[in-house]
């Protein structure tokens, strides 16, 4: 059997428990030219995407990782004997969206955006590691500053913060809401 660049990359992504960044793959494979690596990577992702397969390679949080496809969720839960994974509460989701769109942000700012005290939701998000403390604001009281984490990105299947729903998508939702009422 031959040593194949595509196979090496497949193995690396398979073995990595975190999304494996493109740059890291390149630094690990210094013997191969950059173009070849990128081409093999693309080909690999396409292989999994196009063929009728149960598992796939997804691009999240700035890296590549293996994941199952959504349609097989019922069988996985059967195997692992678990219920549907818990969703975030409404207030946690809103708090998270306030952090995502206004980061870096303080608790007071989040509460102002949402119009309610958000300390409880923020705690939940910290515990779930979807949000992290990155330091303190240089203002009176030196409040802690929060940002979304890498786990946030993979939780929502986002490659980077640029992939957050855009202003256009949000405006569309707002218009739809108005039409409904």
């Amino acid at each position, binding site marked *: 059997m031959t040593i194949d660049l595509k196979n090496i990359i497949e193995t690396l992504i*398979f*073995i990595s*428990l*975190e999304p494996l960044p493109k740059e890291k793959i390149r630094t690990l494979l210094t013997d191969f030219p950059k173009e070849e690596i990128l081409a093999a990577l693309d080909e690999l992702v396409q292989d999994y995407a196009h063929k009728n397969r149960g598992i796939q390679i*997804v691009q999240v949080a700035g890296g590549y*990782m*293996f*994941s*199952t*496809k*959504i*349609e097989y*969720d019922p069988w*996985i839960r059967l195997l692992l004997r678990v219920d*549907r*994974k818990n*969703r*975030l509460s*409404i*207030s946690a*989701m*809103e708090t*998270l*969206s*306030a952090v*995502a*769109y206004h980061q870096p942000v303080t608790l007071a700012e989040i*509460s*102002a*955006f*949402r*119009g*309610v*005290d958000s300390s409880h939701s923020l705690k939940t998000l*910290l515990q779930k*590691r979807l949000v*992290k*403390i*990155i*330091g303190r604001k240089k203002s009176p009281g030196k409040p*802690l500053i929060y940002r979304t*984490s*890498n*786990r946030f990105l993979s*939780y*929502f*299947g*986002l490659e980077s913060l640029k992939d*957050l*729903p855009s202003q256009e*998508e*949000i405006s569309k*939702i*707002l218009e739809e*809401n*108005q039409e409904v*009422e």
Partner: protein
Amino acid sequence: MAFSAQIDKTLEMDTSESYQVKLEAFQGPLDLLLFLIRKKKIDIHDIPISSITKDYLKYLDQKEKINLEHEAEFLLIAALLIYIKSQMLLPRETVPEDDMEDPRKVLIDRLLDFQKIKAAGSLLREKENKELKKWQRTFLPPSDKEKEEELELTEISLFDLAEAFFTLMKKKERDSMRTIKGKEVTHEEKMKEMLDYLDKHSFLDFIEYFNRQETFAEAFLSFFCLLELIKARIVVAIQESLFNTIKVWLRKESPS
């Protein structure tokens, strides 16, 4: 007014929750305000402030019976509305239009921001629903030939760091409580512990070992045990110079 009746019903729902407002429909004053605007089927940019304010203040009236302390934001919104209302009621001076900032703008901006957050939240929810059905492995494949490493973290934040510390501190507090309460280390146990340590490591740094003891009694006991072990010629203790640490070694020829 039919509309008021409907609002009142909603208010009853809220008051029964003693206004922590964790209902699906309402999370706080901005939510309520949006609700009022929507029920009147009006554009957010064209809020008929006086009637909305009336409804809102009525709502606040009811709320006062309950719990105002926690929701400082309520007062802020109320103050904002009252301010806007007063501005609208006051006879206008003849100031050129564009010099006057529309007091409603502040409120509209906040409401728009708020709406956007809610809308973004609903878009994120769709993504969440999809992602929760995907599964990733949380373990290294067993084929990995490297020896198992301790669990590792990739992204540590200040919170993780602080949490680690205060959790350790709590654990330590609990442990020392237990020791004080009764768990007495016996002479034999301590002796065995020291010998086990010497078996595993080539030597024992006694100062460090002494400092690591959780209570004074235990530290004293370990010192006593050391003396006994020396006397029994099981170990040899060496202090290379004054103030240097005492190193304890198992005697090779020690009686077994």
